[in-house]
């Protein structure tokens, strides 16, 4: 049981390049999340998904796209990289029962992160 895995661990992009950050979980969790962590700023939610085929925007979605074709995978796409996207990116998942998700949700499991630099 690997939990939540992310690839790559590190990446340097030039301005305007594109890339996909991969995230996979093997816990059969229905919820998945993408966060970015900037120094001194905590975590900001980029996108989340409540199940295969369903995604929604978080606090800071501009410049990113996601898809969720399977329960296991939740890739994050950067189309035109900008220096403001330099950050550490974390994927997380959780298993939630019922229509009141926060009340019945389990804790979030985080991947090890991807450190992205855009120059």
């Amino acid at each position, binding site marked *: 049981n690997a939990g939540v895995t992310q690839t790559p661990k590190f990446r340097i992009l030039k301005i305007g390049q594109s890339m996909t950050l991969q995230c996979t979980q093997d816990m059969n969790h229905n919820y998945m999340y993408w966060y970015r962590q900037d120094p001194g700023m905590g975590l900001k939610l980029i996108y*989340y998904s*409540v199940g295969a085929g369903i995604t929604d925007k978080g606090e800071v979605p501009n410049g990113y796209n996601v898809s969720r074709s399977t329960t296991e995978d939740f890739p994050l796409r950067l189309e035109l990289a900008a220096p403001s996207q330099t950050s550490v990116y*974390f994927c997380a998942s959780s298993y939630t029962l019922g229509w*009141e998700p926060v009340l019945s949700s389990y*804790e*979030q499991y*985080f991947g090890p992160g991807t450190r992205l630099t855009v120059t």
Partner: protein
Amino acid sequence: AQSVAQPEDQVNVAEGNPLTVKCTYSVSGNPYLFWYVQYPNRGLQFLLKYITGDNLVKGSYGFEAEFNKSQTSFHLKKPSALVSDSALYFCAVGVSGTYKYIFGTGTRLKVLA
């Protein structure tokens, strides 16, 4: 608006002494509160949560947290700190009626030998 605040950027404590990492929150409705720990170059790890029930919540690695509704606080505590507890600690609040969590800015705990 829902929010969570961690008023201390860093907390220093001597090994063996009790530690407290502070968290206050602002939510409409019932609060769902969490503590996570992050070790260097790692993802966040869940420590404990308060959803309902007893105000004192026990979690992993000997940590506990006390929910105080009147003071809107959820401070993390441990009776005797270890050097290995040195890490970055995040408080988070679940937003009622959504699938989202709001994280605090983190508090760096340094336990000195």
